[in-house]
């Protein structure tokens, strides 16, 4: 071993170490950070031109059109027609993705002419479409035309079965259903649908104004008279023509008269 040489080196090394230790690790750490940045920048300096060269090769050698955009797999087809008309068509087709896309685009949902979109959905008894529209905020009625009525429900009555009626009827607004809707229900809905409506709170008469029983008796719907009385129709109600029993006696069948009288006696 060369003791003198190593001893001299150690002596110099001690002085050098003292200076380096006084400076601390900061210069070395800063240098490491700079060197790493340079390595990253160097990689980018190689990679970016390589990608550009590759793109050039693809477009010139392979013949790809650089202007042509990549194919976008659009789930729906939106045309240049007014959005509300497209929405109406999508509801009719049961095209839910297009419906959702149009809603996302901001189609005006308040109404389409004199009929709300929810009523359009009920033309096909399409509960899914109805729910999509209602979740998006589409109303059930056009207030300027059908001020208080549930136009969607009115369309569904007589067209859709009781299951559909049960899914769309709103217990909050059912008590405010108009005589028009309820008389339509008496005329067109089946027993189950009518029962669903009444169970949800739909009115069977308007005191001093109208009565479903009077309507059924007038039109010879004796079975409906029985059902309506069973569902809780008031046999003692007074309508605009006078007491219900007098109206039924004048316009109804003997069976209807007997049913109303029996109900009056039972109450």
């Amino acid at each position, binding site marked *: 071993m060369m003791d003198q040489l190593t001893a001299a*080196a150690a002596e110099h090394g001690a002085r050098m170490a003292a200076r380096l230790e006084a400076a601390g690790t900061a*210069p070395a750490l800063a240098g490491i950070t700079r060197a790493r940045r340079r390595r990253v920048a160097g990689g980018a300096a190689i990679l970016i031109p390589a990608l550009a060269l590759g793109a050039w090769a693809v477009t010139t050698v392979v013949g790809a059109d650089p202007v042509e955009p990549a194919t976008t797999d659009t789930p729906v087809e939106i045309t240049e027609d007014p959005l509300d008309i497209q929405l109406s068509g999508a509801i009719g087709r049961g095209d839910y993705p297009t419906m959702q896309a149009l809603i996302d685009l901001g189609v005006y949902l308040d109404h389409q002419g004199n009929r709300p979109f929810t009523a359009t959905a009920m033309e096909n008894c399409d509960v899914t479409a109805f729910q999509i529209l209602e979740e998006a905020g589409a109303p059930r009625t056009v207030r300027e035309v059908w001020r208080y009525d549930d136009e969607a429900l009115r369309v569904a009555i007589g067209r859709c079965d009781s299951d559909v009626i049960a899914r769309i009827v709103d217990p909050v607004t059912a008590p405010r259903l108009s005589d028009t809707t309820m008389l339509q229900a008496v005329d067109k809905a089946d027993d189950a649908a009518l029962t669903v409506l009444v169970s949800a709170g739909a009115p069977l008469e308007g005191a001093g104004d109208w009565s479903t029983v009077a309507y059924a008796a007038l039109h010879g719907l004796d079975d409906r008279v029985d059902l309506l009385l069973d569902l809780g129709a008031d046999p003692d109600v007074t309508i605009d023509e006078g007491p219900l029993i007098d109206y039924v006696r004048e316009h109804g069948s003997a069976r209807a008269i007997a049913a109303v009288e029996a109900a009056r006696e039972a109450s």
Partner: protein
Amino acid sequence: MGDSTSVVEELYRTAIPRLCAYGFLLTGSESEGEEVVQAAIVKTFSRHRRLEDAASAEAYVRAAMRTLVIDAGRRTTRWRRVMSSQVTLGDGRLEDQVAGEDEVARALRELLPRVRVAVALRYSDDLTTAEVAIRMGVTEGAVKKYLFTARERLGAWLQATETDSAGVAVRVAKGRAR
């Protein structure tokens, strides 16, 4: 850089005097040695190596120091060839005026960088001539030649305790002088 920071700090606490002595042997200058130590640490840790502790890092740093010294020597030689008419050395050497300059430093600087590397590997790292040859990527004969040259220049510091079996007579081949 969280892990590297702790290893660098540990390296500074435990190994910096040894690395500095190594740097002095490799350069023959305290200032150049410090620069080599710093540059080797930066080079070692900038490559995101997973260095768990200072001991393993020290070996990498020593290797980086040797590489830096040999590369610097090659660069200097290349510039001198290309710009020989542009480079003039003054009468007095700047190194003679700075602190830490002495006979050992002057003698070391008179050696070629690769000779200083061979000296460091042989006498600081305690490697055999065969191992030095492997580390440097040269033949064993070349290493013996380097060590022979070193003994000639560093005679005053080497002959006092010279027991090295590598101190055999080396025939200097006629060829290009570098």
